[in-house]
């Protein structure tokens, strides 16, 4: 199966995180990116990184911070951290 299936999120907590940080309540898919989320700007990106670090008790690197450009990217990073 394609891991980037448009309908299934491996990390359902992301829905709440996106609602919380970006006030984004539309359907979240792996393809959701800053293009879809109006408030996902470079500053709010920091809040997202920080929330991911806190929620999953992980520490993200500078590369991962850059790598994250969509919800699918977040899921890949989380998977790599063994979450």
């Amino acid at each position, binding site marked *: 199966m394609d891991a980037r299936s448009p309908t299934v999120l*491996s990390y359902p907590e992301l829905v709440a995180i996106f609602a919380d940080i970006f006030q984004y309540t539309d359907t979240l898919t792996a393809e959701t990116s800053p293009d879809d989320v109006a408030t996902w700007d470079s500053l709010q990106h920091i809040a997202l990184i920080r929330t991911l670090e*806190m929620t999953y008790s992980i520490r993200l*690197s*500078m590369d991962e*911070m850059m790598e994250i450009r969509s919800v699918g990217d977040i899921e890949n990073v989380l998977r790599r951290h063994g979450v």
Partner: protein
Amino acid sequence: MSARANALSMPVDDTAIEKLVDEAIAAAPDCLRRRIILPAIDWSEVSPSKVAVLLSTLAQSRLAVPRWLSKLLLLAGHALPEDVEPTLTPGLVALNRINCAGGASQQREALSGMLPGLCADEQLEGDVATILVQKFAALGWDAEAARLALAQQHRVPGILKRVGKALGAHIERLPNVRLRLTGSSTTQTLADEFKPAFAAKGWRADVMQADFGTMLADLMRPAEDADAHIVLLDLEGFAAQDWRRPAADAFALLTERANNLAAALREFSTRSQAPLLINTIPVPAAPTAGFLDRSHTMGLRRAVDLINRHILDTADQSNHIIVIDADQALADLPVREQSDSKLWYYGRIAYSADAARMLARAFADAWSVLKCGPAKVLAVDFDNTLWGGVYGDDGVEALACGEDFPGNAFRALQAECLRLRQQGLLLVALSKNNPDAITAFQRHAGMLLQPDDFAASAINWEPKPENIRRVAAELNLGLESFVFLDDSPHEREAMRRLCPEVSVPEMPADPAERPLWLRRLTSTWPLRLTAEDETRAALYAARREAQNAKAGAVNFEDYLNGLEQRLAVSLVSKKTLPRVVQMHQRTNQFNLTTLRSTEADISALIESEARGMALVGRVRDKFGDHGLVVTATVEITGTEAVVQSLLMSCRVIGREIERAFLGALIEELKRRGVTRVSGDYIATRKNAMVKDFYASCGWQPAGGDEARSGWVFNIGDMESPQSRFVALDWEA
């Protein structure tokens, strides 16, 4: 569908799991002893009736419910019987009350009594705080949820999210403060933290951020519509190092930058009357000149010291620049967690999220003290606060306060009270006792405070809230300038309930933690010390410098001379007997015979003046009182005397106190007609330091061996030992 989603959507065999839980509950006593299985169960999935079975199984085996299990059950929403509550933390007690009541309105009233304590509780566990806020919010108790979350947000990240929409409404209702924020790097993360940090202090922060990189310009042309200006300073953003320049040039440049900042601050204070709050630059996470970092011009720490000095000196000259000590504000965070390098490289954000939260709190604390003024009155309880024990029950002799453990912790709190008194706070005695309790300060030798240190007192059996109102009227001060210290949670709760204006901090239960805790209590921090304090301090400093100049190179004799030591010798009395006995039990190093005399032994000795005597000496020097530190017992037979014991506390060793004390002992024996004194040194594993004590005081050897040597002194024939560094007083 992915494999993972498939696994999740497969039905779980509930009956199998339930059987496992049932068996675990049946075997609860054994599981509990080994601390297995029970911690792994998700108790929120277990029915209340099964939890009841668990509790009764444990009760039948006479096993108390341990706190970890109580906590798991409470977090899962279960109610515990009331008799478990004494073992619980205040947060868990509150949770239990909520779980028991399920939101009854009278419960809300009862809990609002506990709320200020929970808000002020620096030990409230993060998960408990989070659940409490969540439950308050779910019950629709919005005010409680918002207050607790705001009060704890500096310790419990993420707790604000649990309040939900009510938080915004709560903050919206607070009086606003317009903050102009500028800094040497990105200020956005700090701006975000200002909302909750100021709301915790009762203010709605409206933050206006200056453009990036305009710090100095912003200071020199201050915005006029701000209630307060805030400057967030960091080293890298303010003065990045240029390693191509020779070190001397770079340092000259840094000095110029620091001068520019100081000039901008001065310019600000001539142009604006609004307060300006600026932080010092914290200790760098890593040095650039290694071992030389604090001394060499290439060192980051030296650069930090230089910049900070400029800020502090400028603030000293101005009456509205307040400096936040960043090292103090960030003290609970390891230095390498004070910044997050990827954030710096990403967006020139100098401080980590945790550090920004702590700095925001420090700025909000300072604003709050600035706005409301620092506390003016410290109202203190007596029993188990200023001394250990209960005056009315135990009697004055038994109160713990003095140089020794555990009384020294109480004495240290008294010292903190005196410190605050010197900084201009009034001390008020607020004690449930008979009025004569105030005399304990005079009658007990270990007390630092004296009755006249208190500007007012209410020592009676009336409720403390009534007393504090009366004292406030007497002193003509508002209750909002009072801070109330009491070890009793009940007294604190009563005070909060009946006098909500009074500041009632949660004093730690452990007396050992209280002195430092009181130092960290920001509501008592002075913003300025009065001119009088400053001149006095300056006077002392000048005198000290003059002394140092005169002394030149100070040798040990000069040091002893400068100590201004006084030894007050007296016969052991009923009052000093407990301390003398304690010294006999405890002293190992400076102890000639290590005779462990008991209270009865020494009492017998002091009751018959003809057959013996016991002496004790108190040492004071210019730095303070060391208390009763040296003692001896002597048996007398006609004109012969034998020193039975001679011992001294190690805190005054090596200052000739022992010499002066032995001289005093000989003088007293001479007065009683004794002509010859003898004494033994009995070796132990720890007292080698006094092997040659008698010899060094001019006594003659009188046989014996390594393990036990005898010494004699003929009064009249030989010169009595004395010390020119110790002034001797006899006390009745």
